């Protein structure tokens, strides 16, 4: 079975390798035909990375075969065999290095993986090129004066070939990446991008004079692709560019030197696109994780607030329970019955709080109720009193008379107010005493209430005001900086808003909808 699978793998690999080698066999140099674009090493490396180093003999045999078929080097040539051996061991070393470093999944999904990949490929191919050229010189197959050019050609050719092709092969073998590739096909934007890349290639090779002078034309479309489609788009795009460049070289029958130059430019373009793609993907992943943790944080803060709410009836429940026990022991059953009545009422009160918590976790919904503005201000007073107790800050309250009730989740809005007042208290505390916090409530417009929390703290600089509500941005040395993000999310879920005003002092505006009558 094992042998069968081995042979089957080889039966796929050998023709693919030969095909790639044949396609890319352009502008050979010297007796051993060093070409400026070698995608086939990527195939050998990725294959040995994924299928194991046991396939090295197949690789060796394939290289000998390819030399014989494509480069007309007889399989009996001693130098040819040695060169194939050298290449095979070099590719195997790179494959081993990558497989070891890029654990657990070599799909280049992080900057670290990509950097390791680029470093191993660049260094590995440079060494292989040096050894290969050295071998040819020793054998007298390459003139000394072309040694440096030969090395550069070989290195650039192999490095570009691997950098361009290996990410595509790795993507094709990774299920998640394959999904990303398939998603590209379904997007209309992809076709516009392809057209733009092809247009740039046409301009570079057909319309304008020196191709390498106008190579920069390819950067904007590739940046667009990498930003919009991440690594998947970038890998496909650079492959398209590489094929285009090869065809262009063919079309213009360029000389050796501009080809190396062009390939070096392709390498630069490849690195740019790959890095950009990975950064875009890492950012997307971070945002996704953030949303998740934001929801968890909101739920956590809610849970804290609700734990307080549920503790009150629970305490009364325990007290009544103990009292009932004592009454029964004393035989005062009539009074005990009354106490049990109250126990049931407290149990219902606790159940109501728990039900609200469950609702919140199930769908993140808010329990909207008609709440008098006075009740909210009462909460502010309570929270303010605490700040006063802890840091000696004076909290003043002012409300426009005759404000209608608001339609809010009392617990959640209390949470927001607590956040705002705690923040204000912390800002004021930095002043070293004598700070004040003022809370005013008035009409924002006909249908909205506005609660303004101002403090005598240093205010918010313009720069940080823009980022204030972003999660994990915190002016404090302690804390995660989730408070304001959660608060704004809650305000917006109510159909209101939460904003910071610029100024020489701290000022936050919380807008909430009134309860609509009729």
């Amino acid at each position, binding site marked *: 079975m094992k042998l069968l699978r081995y042979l089957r793998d080889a039966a796929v690999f050998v023709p693919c390798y030969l095909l790639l080698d044949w396609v890319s066999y352009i502008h050979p140099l010297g007796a051993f035909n060093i070409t400026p674009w070698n995608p086939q090493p990527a195939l050998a490396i990725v294959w040995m990375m994924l299928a194991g180093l046991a396939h090295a003999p197949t690789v060796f045999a394939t290289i000998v075969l390819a030399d014989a078929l494509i480069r007309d080097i007889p399989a009996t040539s001693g130098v040819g065999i040695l060169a194939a051996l050298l290449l095979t061991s070099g590719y195997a070393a790179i494959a081993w290095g990558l497989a070891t470093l890029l654990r657990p999944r070599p799909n280049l999904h992080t900057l670290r993986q990509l950097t390791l990949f680029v470093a191993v490929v660049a260094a590995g191919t440079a060494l292989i090129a040096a050894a290969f050229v050295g071998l040819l010189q020793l054998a007298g197959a390459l003139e000394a004066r072309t040694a440096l050019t030969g090395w550069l050609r070989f290195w650039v050719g192999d490095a570009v070939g691997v950098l361009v092709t290996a990410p595509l092969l790795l993507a094709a073998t990774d299920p998640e990446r394959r999904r990303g590739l398939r998603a590209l096909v379904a997007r209309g934007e992809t076709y516009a991008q392809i057209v733009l890349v092809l247009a740039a290639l046409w301009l570079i090779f057909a319309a304008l004079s020196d191709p390498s002078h106008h190579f920069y034309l390819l950067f904007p479309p590739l940046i667009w692709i990498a930003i919009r489609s991440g690594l998947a788009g970038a890998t496909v795009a650079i492959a398209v560019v590489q094929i285009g460049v090869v065809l262009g070289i063919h079309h213009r029958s360029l000389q050796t030197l501009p080809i190396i130059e062009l390939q070096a430019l392709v390498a630069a373009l490849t690195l740019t696109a790959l890095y950009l793609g990975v950064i875009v993907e890492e950012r997307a992943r971070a945002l996704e994780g953030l949303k998740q943790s934001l929801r968890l944080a909101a739920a956590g803060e809610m849970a804290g607030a609700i*734990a*307080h709410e549920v*503790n*009150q*009836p*629970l*305490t*009364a*429940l*325990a*007290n*009544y329970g*103990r*009292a009932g026990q*004592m*009454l029964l022991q*004393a035989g005062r059953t009539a009074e005990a019955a009354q*106490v049990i009545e*109250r126990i049931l*009422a*407290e149990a219902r*009160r606790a159940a109501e709080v728990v039900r609200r918590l469950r609702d919140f976790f199930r769908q993140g919904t808010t329990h909207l109720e008609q709440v008098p503005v006075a009740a909210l201000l*009462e909460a502010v*007073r*309570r929270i303010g*009193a*605490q700040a*006063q*107790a*802890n840091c000696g800050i004076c909290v003043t309250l002012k409300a426009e008379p005759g404000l209608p009730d608001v339609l809010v989740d009392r617990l959640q809005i209390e949470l927001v107010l607590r956040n705002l007042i705690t923040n204000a208290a912390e800002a004021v505390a930095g002043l070293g005493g004598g700070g004040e916090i003022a809370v005013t409530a008035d009409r924002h417009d006909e249908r909205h209430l506005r609660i303004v929390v101002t403090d005598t703290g240093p205010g918010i600089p313009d720069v940080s005001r823009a980022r204030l509500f972003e999660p994990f941005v915190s002016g404090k040395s302690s804390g995660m900086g989730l408070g304001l993000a959660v608060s704004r999310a809650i305000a917006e879920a109510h159909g209101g808003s939460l904003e910071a005003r610029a100024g020489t002092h701290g000022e936050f505006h919380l807008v909430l909808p009134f309860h609509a009558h009729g």
Partner: protein
Amino acid sequence: MRMAEGRGAPLVVYVVDDDASIRDSLALMLGLGGYATRLFADAESFLERFEPAWTGCVVADLRLPGLSGVELQARVRERGSAIPFIVITAHGDVAAARTAFRAQAVDFIEKPFDESQLRAAIDTAFALERQRVEASEMRRADAARLSRLTSREREVLEHSVKGLHAKEIAQLLGISPRTVEVHRARVMEKLEVRNIAELVRFAVAAER
């Protein structure tokens, strides 16, 4: 009733909590347990009625509308009362607990609590309170005895406590040593002490 134990001074549990159910249930439970209780919905209404002569302990919620439980404790101390405080809270708030203990709260109890937990705290508070009441009663008795001395006798007492002999005191006050002896005997009789050592101890205690 426990309140009768405080040698005349009734020991009362003063409950300050804004939650009506908690006030009601605490009063019921503690009442059945033999404690006298008085209930307040917030710190302000407590302070309105408060008299420094109150004895017992205060069970105050940390979070109250207006002044917090810890602030209430500070106000009560300002008014010259050392009545013990037990702070209860539904928030497991470490910072608040620290503040409460710094202000010498007897205990800091998280809601929901066991009856036994609360009773233990109240009993500790009452034990402290009894010591305090006894000490202050003793001080009051001492003061009463001191007030019975004439001004001359008080002078003699002050000098005696400093360790002066009758002769030296006589010289200082311009009277005969014999008269000093008579005054001193009367002082010891009025203060109910048997010898000079006890007299000194009394004077030191009275100074405090």
